[in-house]
């Protein structure tokens, strides 16, 4: 019975989407409650997998064999479970936030919005429980497709242009790089099933070194949702979407699906031994370090609130890959746990950006002087999230950064610690001014924020997520246990 739970978790939001479309605009309250109920069932299904997983049970379900070695099948492991937990939990919170945001701004096409949202969560869960590259590829492509209407939601010139870039980059890289890498993997090994320690035998690695190196690069850039530089520009472009979309999809589901898939390839297709034998470890560490520093520097120059968050996301995604690419216990732990830790901090920040836009109608950081007094819960939550992003002890971000630094020392590459330190300073440099402006500066025009008051539909969800950055910072046991039991 338990092996059907992943399938239930995937299909419940597809059902939800169908119901949402059927109900439509006639009864918005019912429509949104279906989103919430589907979210709760989904989260319940994912959570009930945790005990069985911790007992070490094998949870595997094969739905169909399409071609020899090409199955549609699902397996639950630590990496996938952690990603699914975070995504399904944050979906519930985002739904509440979306209600406040979409109704607050009287957005059009809300039915399509909620339906696509539900479908994108199905795809994200499908990616997390996929047992092989083929299944993962299906859901990866599906995620791109169903998020397009969300990115292009406003349907104006800007929205369509952002959506065009989004689809062009993601589908294009998936076709050119990913498809060739997957087909070559299939040709070389005859299977696409994930395996602990990788599916390429040492003999294969010796005979096809150049090919496997090229394929690795193809995988890194083929799963382009991970936004490794230089192919990252779709992510800032996709910020034209409504803020809840940017929040969930570009802090939790889409981009995390990207780094998740890359981690899967590194851990379960190649494996540490193969990567080291191919001399590719330094390459991955270099491009990710480069991305971290460069993206942080770019983020400092952006005045648009969401653009700054977007570049910060680009940088933080590479944290996860750098950790996994260390292939040392602490490195992998730090990298994967950052999926969760960063998700809670970054979604809070996006929620704040959206809440400010809904209540005060501004998108510029330079115009935020003094808004903290009018929106205390919102800006306080932002402060908490900032501390977590910077990596202050007792906050979520510290757990991952600490383990990442440990990992760097384990593989005796202290220069990586330097990268983390510099990037933490940069994090502080571009986030703390926001807090400072909000609380400690007076607006030039004293009457500027007179009409502004907090929208509780927005403020409560973001306060909850910001609390989680503290809770996860103080009690990080669950994610760590899950990852440890996976690494054993």
């Amino acid at each position, binding site marked *: 019975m338990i092996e059907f739970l992943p399938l239930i978790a995937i299909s419940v939001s597809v059902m939800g989407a169908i119901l949402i479309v059927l109900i439509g605009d006639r009864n918005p309250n019912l429509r949104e409650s279906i989103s919430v109920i589907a979210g709760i069932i989904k989260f319940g299904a994912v959570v009930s997998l945790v005990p069985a997983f911790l007992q070490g049970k094998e949870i595997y379900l094969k739905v169909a064999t399409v071609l020899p070695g090409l199955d549609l099948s699902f397996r639950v492991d630590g990496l996938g479970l952690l990603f699914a937990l975070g995504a399904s939990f944050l979906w519930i919170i985002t739904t509440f936030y979306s209600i406040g945001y979409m109704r607050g701004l009287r957005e059009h096409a809300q039915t399509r919005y909620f339906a696509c949202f539900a479908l994108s969560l199905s795809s994200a869960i499908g990616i997390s429980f996929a047992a092989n590259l083929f299944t993962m590829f299906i859901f990866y492509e599906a995620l791109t497709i169903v998020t397009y209407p969300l990115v292009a939601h406003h349907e104006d010139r800007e929205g369509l242009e952002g959506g065009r870039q989004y689809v062009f980059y993601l589908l294009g890289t998936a076709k050119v790089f990913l498809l060739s890498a997957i087909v070559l993997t*299939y040709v070389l090994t005859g299977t696409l099933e994930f395996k602990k320690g990788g599916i390429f035998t040492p003999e294969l690695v010796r005979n096809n070194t150049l090919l496997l190196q090229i394929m690795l690069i193809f995988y890194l850039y083929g799963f382009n949702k991970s936004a490794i530089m230089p192919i990252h520009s779709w992510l800032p472009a996709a910020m034209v979407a409504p803020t809840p979309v940017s929040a969930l999809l570009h802090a939790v589901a889409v981009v995390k699906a990207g780094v998740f898939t890359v981690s899967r390839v590194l851990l379960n297709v190649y494996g540490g031994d193969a990567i080291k034998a191919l001399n590719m470890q330094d390459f991955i560490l270099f491009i990710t370090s480069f991305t971290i520093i460069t993206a942080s520097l770019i983020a400092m120059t952006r005045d648009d609130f969401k653009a700054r968050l977007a570049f910060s996301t680009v940088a933080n995604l590479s944290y996860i890959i750098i950790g996994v690419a260390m292939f040392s216990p602490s490195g992998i732990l730090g990298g994967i746990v950052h999926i969760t830790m960063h998700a809670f901090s970054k979604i809070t920040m996006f929620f704040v950006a959206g809440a400010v836009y809904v209540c005060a109608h501004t998108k510029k950081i330079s115009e935020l002087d003094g808004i903290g007094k009018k929106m205390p819960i919102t800006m306080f939550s932002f402060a908490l999230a900032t501390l977590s992003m910077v990596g202050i002890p007792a906050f979520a971000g510290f757990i991952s950064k600490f383990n990442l630094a440990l990992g760097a020392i384990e593989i005796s590459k202290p220069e990586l610690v330097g990268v983390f330190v510099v990037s933490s300073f940069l994090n502080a440099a571009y986030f703390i001014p926001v807090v400072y402006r909000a609380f400690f500066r007076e607006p030039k025009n004293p009457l500027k924020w007179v009409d502004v008051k907090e929208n509780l539909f927005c403020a409560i969800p973001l306060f909850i997520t910001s609390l989680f950055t503290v809770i996860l910072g103080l009690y990080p046991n669950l994610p760590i246990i899950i990852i440890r039991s996976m690494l054993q």
Partner: protein
Amino acid sequence: MMELLSLAIISPLLGGLLIFLIKDRRFSKFISYLSSLISLIAFFVLFLNFEKTGGFQHVISLEWIPAWRVNIEFGLDKFNAPFAILTSLISIVAIHLSLRTAIERVENYLSLILLLQFTVIGFYLSTNLFLFFIFYEAMLPPAFFLIYRWGTGDSYRAAFKFLIYTFAFSIFLFIGIIGVFMAAGSFSFESLKELNLSLQDKTLLYLAFFLAFAVKIPIVPLHGWLRDAYYLSPTPITIFMSAVMGKMGIYGLLRVTPYFSDVLLEIGWAIILLCLISFIYAAFLALNQRDMKLLFSYMSLSHVGIITAGLLSGTLQGLNGSLLQSINHGVLAASFFYLAEIFKRQTKSYDMDRLGALSKRVPVLVFFTFAFVMAMGGFPGLSYFNGEILLLSGIFRHSVILGFLAIIGVAIGVVYLCYFFYRVFLKKPGSDMSLLVRDVRGFEFVIFSVFFIITLYLGLNPSFVIGQVENIFTYYGR
């Protein structure tokens, strides 16, 4: 079972003759649907009742020319049965679409379509090269008259070009068949196994076959007839040509290529390269079109390039991939041309730039178009992806460089398909032509649903067409 197969083959011919003799408008419509439907159902029942391994089954055999050991012989095996079903299915669609558009002298038209269907089915099911050749030629007159008489614009030129190209190059098929007869003393396909020829002679023989079929498929640079023949024909005939008749060339290669694997080891890379150039060249042509029907014509030309390339890769993957992809392509090409005709019927134009912003007006049409665009773009889990992965595996196995070349073509394919969808359904502001477009319903809804279900089903269970291919990673030549 033999009777059923005879019924399946003969019913279009009988229907065609009946219509021709009776010449009654209403009667002819009924007969045409009925005879195609009988043929489809019979083939389907036969398909469910046969083994996808081994040689010809349910064979019908009539003695004909004993001196040459030639019989009138039809049979089903793994390679031709899917094509036979496809032909009957596409015929029904073509007949329905013809009846939806105003056509003069519909009786003659329908009897020619049924005759065409009969010759194509006869071609697919013949078990010896002699009969195979006769049906290959017999298909030309009905096709010529259909294009010439009912085409638009300079249809005489289009029909004549089509005729000349196919007819002229079929001389190579003739030479090939004579060569086989001289070397093996028989016309049967089995005799290809026992060719006692030097590698050089075999290469020449294979090139003769390839040239004849490459015109039919077609492969660039032998595609000169395609643009006019596809564009100026009435759309039902375009559907028939691209979904079924183009596949005749691929089927011919599927039949002969496995026996020439030693030739492929020598010159295979060159032919594959040619096919891939055709694939990419036609994709670029498609990228430039603003005319929907031309776009789909070039798309069709492009995709048969990679199907042929995979077939020639000399691997079981490529061989099965091309069989599977031919069927998938047949279904999807038919649906795309059908879509183009729906737009033409309502707006009197194929011009994509005069549409736009349709996404909310016609939800059912959007859904089907989107599904077909996704399927044709190789969305994993839908039918086309399975064929694509098999073909690409075959090509990559042959040569990694050629594989990357193929990937480029695949990527351009996604671009023009998405661009098509964007221009017709999403682009804002839409033109006033968009207001003329109405949603699909009735029998057309059924047709699209059937196509969609086939796409979904073959996405999860391609072994329905290609059978259980256990040892898929072997070369058949080495």
